[in-house]
């Protein structure tokens, strides 16, 4: 399951990442690490980006990036 499949307002836990190495490091620095909790706060209309809460910060991820972040329900 990836982040795009999560409805607004739900908390999930990161389990992995599918994609390039550089992107992975970047997301790790922003707090998208396995085991960390993420909440989908809202998403922009017309297939816009997601606004996520992770580690007390709000992060915007485009749908392309978000589709690579693997998560599970808590």
């Amino acid at each position, binding site marked *: 399951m990836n982040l795009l499949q999560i409805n607004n307002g739900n908390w999930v836990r990161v389990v992995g990442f599918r*994609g*390039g*190495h*550089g*992107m*992975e*490091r*970047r*997301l*790790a*620095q*922003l*707090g998208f*690490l*396995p*085991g*960390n909790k993420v909440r989908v706060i*809202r998403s*922009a*209309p*017309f*297939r*816009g*980006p997601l*606004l996520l809460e992770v*580690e*007390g*910060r*709000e*992060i*915007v*991820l*485009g*749908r*392309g*990036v978000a589709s*690579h972040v693997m998560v599970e329900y808590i």
Partner: protein
Amino acid sequence: MRYALVGQPNCGKSTLFNQVAGYKAETGNFSGTTVSFKETKVRVLGDVVELVDLPGTYTLLGTNPAERVVLDYLIEKRVDVIINVIDATHLVQGLLLTIELMELRRPIVLAVNMMDEALRQGIKIDGEQLSELLGIPVMPMIASRGQGIRETFIKAWHAGEEKRIPQPVQYGEVIESAIEDIKGKIERGVFPISRRAIAVKLLEGDPKVMEMVRESVPNIGETIHQHLDILCHQSFRQAVWLVATERQHAARDFESKVKTQGESFLSFRDRLDDYLLHPVFGYIFLVLILGSFFALVYGIGNMLEAPLMQFFEGITHAVMQFFPSSGLVPELITGLIQGFAGGLAIVLPYLLPFLIGLGFLEDIGYLTRIAFLMDALMHRMGLHGKAIVPFILGYGCNVPAIMSTRIMEDPRDRFLSAALATMVPCAARLAVIFGLASFYLGPWVALGIYFYNLVVIAVTGRIITHFIPEDSPGLILEMPVYRLPTVRSVTAKAWFRIREFIFEAWPLLIVGSIVLAAMNFYSITPFFDRLFSPITWLLGLPRQVGTPLIFGILRKELSLIMLAQAFGTTDFGSVLNAEQIISYTVFVVFYIPCLATMVTIKNELGGKNMWIITGLTIIVALIAALLARLVFFLFV
């Protein structure tokens, strides 16, 4: 002595820098990349210290050019003290970078910024305890109000004098033994950063560091692979995540010992995004906010433009009394005054309120919200949300628009957003649209041209994307909390942007204006008319408009003003029919960015890209004008 400010994006680093440097800051472009850092000289305890503000970064060995600059700078220049600025409200995230920095074996001072914000959120941080735990000096700070800045620099001075090298934070046993082994393979003193830092970066799989080390240790790749095998067999996770997770554990451990969470005083601000990012109301507010912003800018600009122009006309008259009524000298002097007046009376009245307003929107945190709302739309043009900023700026003036493409990570995105932003009708082209099309054909025509412009830009973006496909992964950015901007930071920012126009573009305007006056005097203009005749023929325009089009490259308003000289009348409606007015206006809107914009493109993206973009705009202008003619022919 050289101090470097290092911190994550949006931690208040630049606020601190501006507080220290005032407007004396200099921008420098790093060779190769174009992400800039700023330098200034400050006096600390009697010593003159060079202070550099490096771009914000989440990690030392990042993937985008801005982040890369940070490590390249730390390697190439001798930095005596690192001043690491972190956001007190995001302590754990900030400390992740601090832990990375502590591996470099350079003296570090930690400035915990935004203590006022933390207090509002009920967060208390024990700075002394943190300093003891990390083994580096720690100073609480409120950079926006100037609190704690002096003390931070004094601490940095002492750290630099004593060459206080911090002890790096220890990882788990397996990682530590890997680091020890890799360190053993690397010779001491060959690399400008510590062997430990290099070993960690190798484990994290940084390609650049790998390349660097391979030159002296050819078989390092195998060693790393062995260790990755050990690391990743014991855990299903990848090494990058192992290291990051350990740093996070350490950072959380530090936080739990120094932070106490009390009651939060936030209420209204948290709810604001429910309206401003709402799927429906969010866009309504966007239109309202941007609409009133532009109305304000044009209102102020208009109010100042007319009296300033009158003032310069008066000056021209007064000066001309001392010269013969005809001849080269008075022509040249008129050219000089016109060039000077163009900058002061036509550009600055719009640019100044625009930049102040923009700095305000930026500091308050709204620009990121616009990027969030517009990301989906921008993707249709092959760009992502961040590219909306150069577009918005472009309506005021293309020069700051081009400069703002620096926020894009990918060179391809920078090029595309710069190319498209030059086609956005700036305030000068607004004068042509309103003075010609709207004046003779009505306001709806002006609105139609603006809309047509948007369509052409979107289609152009799509076509270019077809040839250079979008390969950047998309939008990744941190949503800042709303903050009330200070007058000082907004004005400093506006000045920082406006000085580039004043010192780089304006002198060119003046020189160009003088040169054109001379050309006019020696009657070289028929030559230009002939040069442009294929274009004017294609567009169905009289030959004389060639010279105004040339003048328009210098300053877009001139393609309107010079029409009077070309036709010998100011009643353009009697010489041009409706179709000609539309095709001329459309062509002026798109063709060749003005000289100041071209120079900016050259500075930001290089000479080659400047010519590519210029060529592109001519092609687009021709096609757009011909299409407009066709539409006019078919439907009117």
